């Protein structure tokens, strides 16, 4: 896996508008952004209503993912190009879903919606019609998803990368600064975790930093041991999906998992160790 396999730029998107077998999908943190304007022919996935189980705290199951992609007119062989706002935060989360359920050809638009908008490229409000398909997902790929017991077992053994802001890492905030402060029962971080805020992987326009800059950030500055397996977490597993993309898809680290339970689960567990305070 390398950068050219998993990222496309705006010129690529404009050159492939209308191609059979290429589907643009917008996934935004602000789920109303699509309705105000989107890239021509893009369909929308709502991370909250489409990707989450409506009752339990979990993802849509395999059948639900199949129904979603079938309804959006996405086939197993299609090249899916995901994009969204806020440095592709939620697009990267959706990318991880597509990989989790075995979609072969999925990419991110580098820089996402923000870079596209800041470059004053075309946005339309027309919603495309795509004929429904019969999408078939694979079973979840457990090699990229971590659960709480393996996170506890990883303390002091594997790389734990906490991708939240320094204030959340230290325990001063329980949620990102653009959200109300409601979350886990306790603040702080998982002992031995390194703090590399997810956004450090992106440049100001939302595109990813170079591979060299990313290696420097994680390995040389934060001390992530590239010889060990890694688990990334944030508050509910969305920002850490972005970091998973960087470590696993861009830098080609072989064993990287996203812990989607993240701090809202870990910080509410009874009896697990917690460290408070800034990174040393």
């Amino acid at each position: 896996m390398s950068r050219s396999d998993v990222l496309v730029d705006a010129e690529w998107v404009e050159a492939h508008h209308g191609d059979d077998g290429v589907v643009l999908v917008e996934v935004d943190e602000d789920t109303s952004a699509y309705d105000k304007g989107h890239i021509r022919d893009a369909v929308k996935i709502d991370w909250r209503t489409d990707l989450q189980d409506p009752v339990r705290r979990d993802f849509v199951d395999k059948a639900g993912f199949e129904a979603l992609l079938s309804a959006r007119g996405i086939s197993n062989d299609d090249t899916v190009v995901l994009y969204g706002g806020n440095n592709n935060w939620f697009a990267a989360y959706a990318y991880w879903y597509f990989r989790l359920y075995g979609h072969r050809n999925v990419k991110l638009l580098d820089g996402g919606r923000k870079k596209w908008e800041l470059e004053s490229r075309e946005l339309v409000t027309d919603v495309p019609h795509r004929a429904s398909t019969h999408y078939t997902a694979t079973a979840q790929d457990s090699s990229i998803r971590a659960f709480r017991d393996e996170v506890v077992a990883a303390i002091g053994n594997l790389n734990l990368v906490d991708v939240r802001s320094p204030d959340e890492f230290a325990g001063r905030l329980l949620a990102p600064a653009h959200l109300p402060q409601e979350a886990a029962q306790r603040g702080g971080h998982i002992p031995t975790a390194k703090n590399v805020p997810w956004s450090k992987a992106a440049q100001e326009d939302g595109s990813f930093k170079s591979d060299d800059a990313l290696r420097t950030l994680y390995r040389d500055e934060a001390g992530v041991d590239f010889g060990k397996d890694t688990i990334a977490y944030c508050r509910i597993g969305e920002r850490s999906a972005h970091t998973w993309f960087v470590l696993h898809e861009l830098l080609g680290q072989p064993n990287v998992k996203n812990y989607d339970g993240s701090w809202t689960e870990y910080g509410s567990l009874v009896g697990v160790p917690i460290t408070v305070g800034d990174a040393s």
Partner: protein
Amino acid sequence: MSSDGCGAPAGTVVAATDAGSQAIVQGKVTQNGSTVLTGYARLLNSGGDFVAEVPLGADGSFRFFAAPGTWTLLVLAPGGVRAERTVSADIGKVTELEVAV
């Protein structure tokens, strides 16, 4: 308002009038007296590191729930527009600012 996710509130920001136990920083972005409809507001900590970012609402508005302290607000908009403001946040207070770019 999302209560279960990292997600931002959907749609236009509804200005807060009572901060409760929050430290709210909110405001509006204008250009030549008109509302800026397309753009982004980001909050940087005192070390210059990114903390959060929101797209501007339909009325050019933004809102952050910060921790007490001094922050930098950075506004990005098409045409290479980039504006920075220093702002302080306090618990129980709504700090309002208008950013003319």
